[in-house]
């Protein structure tokens, strides 16, 4: 079995974000990018766990993004993936979830895969649309928000778990398939220092996005974004927290109750 994991590099959650002068995107100038999307880390862990538990042949990583996205792929290799492919976009190239899915599908066509895994969503645009669209473009079934999966190779079926509000669902379906992973069976591993150093030497292939133009053009939607952002705003700054001064727990409770009733009006 071969697993393909699709990862996305996102801005560091601790970085200060600004809107670009166009008003339609984040200003990536001077923004620190984390090595990887946290949801992707959970997904990659699930892929590696399966590889180790079921003796899969390989875990390969794929990303669409600018040159710096190589960092996300190296981090995935450091976690334990075997090879990586970067579909490299030129600076300023606009992508939306569906266009990204088309590019991933075109690249994935040349990479062996029985399972294609994506994170539940990216921390930055939170669209969560790539997985289902990718299934569509690859002509594969897609399953979303899976928490743990067990492949049954003989019957080409997957046993999957999914958390529901207050419960859990166990279901099955055929593979090859595309899955969006909510959370794996294990917490994502931290790459060790020796593995970070080894990851440098693992194969990482870069494909200029132009090379996929012919393949993507024949897909519905073509070689361009399907949707366009019209405006982009940051949430209004939150007003400061209020500190209550108190001497005794009783006083704290009384004051808190008063604020909740009179100012916050939640009681």
């Amino acid at each position, binding site marked *: 079995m071969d697993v393909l994991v699709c990862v996305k590099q996102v801005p560091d959650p601790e970085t200060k974000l600004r809107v670009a002068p166009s008003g339609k995107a984040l200003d990536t100038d001077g923004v620190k990018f*984390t*090595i990887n999307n946290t949801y992707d880390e959970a997904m990659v862990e699930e892929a590696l766990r399966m590889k180790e538990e079921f003796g899969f042949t390989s875990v390969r990583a794929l990303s669409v993004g600018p040159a710096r996205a*190589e*960092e996300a792929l*190296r*981090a995935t290799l*450091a976690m334990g993936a075997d090879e990586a492919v970067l579909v490299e976009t030129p600076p300023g190239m606009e992508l939306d979830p569906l266009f990204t899915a088309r590019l991933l599908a075109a690249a994935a066509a040349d990479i062996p895969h029985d399972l294609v895994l994506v994170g539940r969503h990216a921390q930055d645009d939170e669209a969560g649309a790539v997985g289902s669209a990718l299934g569509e473009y690859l002509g594969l079934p897609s399953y979303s928000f899976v928490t743990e999966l067990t492949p049954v190779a003989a019957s080409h079926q997957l046993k999957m778990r999914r958390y529901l509000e207050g419960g859990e669902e166990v279901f099955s379906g055929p593979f090859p398939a595309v899955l969006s992973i909510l959370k794996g069976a294990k917490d994502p591993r*931290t*790459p*060790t*220092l*020796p*593995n*970070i*150093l080894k*990851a*440098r030497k693992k194969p990482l292939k870069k494909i200029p996005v132009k090379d996929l133009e012919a393949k993507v053009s024949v897909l519905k939607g073509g070689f361009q974004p399907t949707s366009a952002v019209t405006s982009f705003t940051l949430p209004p700054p939150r007003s400061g927290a209020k500190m209550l001064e108190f001497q005794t727990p009783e006083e704290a409770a009384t004051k808190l109750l008063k604020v909740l009733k009179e100012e916050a009006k939640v009681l």
Partner: protein
Amino acid sequence: MAIDFELTQEQKELQELARRFARDVMAPRAAKADKLGEFPEDVYRKAWELGLMNLNVPTEFGGSGLGELDQCIITEELAYACGGMTTSISANCLALQPINLAATKEQKERLLKPFCASYNLASFALTEPSGGSDVASMKTTLKREGDEYVINGEKVFITNAPHASIYTLFATVDAARRHKGVTAIVVPRNTPGITVGKDEDKLGHRASATSSITFENARVPVANRLGEEGDGFKIAMNTLDSTRTPIGALATGIARAALDHAAKYSLQRSSFGKPIGEHQAIALKLADMAQKVTAARLLVWYSAWLADQGKPVPMESSIAKCFASDSAMEVANEAIQVFGGYGYMREYPVEKLLRDAKLTQIYEGSNEIQRLVIAKELLKRFA
């Protein structure tokens, strides 16, 4: 374009690994370990698991095989979370460096490999009760009897001594020969005749353990000697030459933590109708602190970079260590000032930084000794 301050991708990843470990594993334990003087062994074990421990040991013997610059990048990140834990983690580098530098292949296979293959701590045992700065006057003796040396004497202030499984010991085969008598030998902790003293109650670095080691007729095979008799002084000095710059990085991490705490607090705390950071007296302080942190890091990186090029760095490493540790002390001191009364309280994180910074001016060659070295090297050029 001969100068390039950009870290390589690999260095950024090592930095990120260390930063995450520091933030997620070390930082949450720092305040309590400091308060209670605990030795958080699980943190150290985890550091070993991630490969953050034996950074300077070549990979063929089970270490991480990093150069000095990489070590400095990692050390700064760790010390940002806790100076004391970083001292205990990097004590292995200090203790193992004599083996890296002077051991035969056979000794490395026998002493380093099994040591690095599992979680183990080591101690570098040089300082004696009668003096740390004047190494050549050491009194601990090595007396050869057949295939063994018999060790007698006492070492003090030895980091990790209560928890280490091996000691790299410096002792003399003939005190009259001063530095020419100093000899290095690897001593297993379980050698009969070794007594480890009480864990010292310290001002700072309280998550690290420090104690004395007494040797009473402790017998160690001659096969554990590093180099020849009389090579020990040189081995110790060469070791300290390569660990001094990382101590500068450790101090830089403490200073950066102090600066960050102070800068954040200066925007939260208001007086006279505006954040204190907008009062010029505080703003100028922060600017001075930022200069010191930045300069310290650059001096550390420069010295480490030179060392990685194989160049001798007696002056540069002393400058880096001395400047960074003095800066850490000054920056931590000013951070407390920015916090006002709160800064003086144990409940806030900055007073610990001052206590932790202080040690960096003392150990691995006091700053007085560093200044002597710097002046000596400087004056050589004009003599």
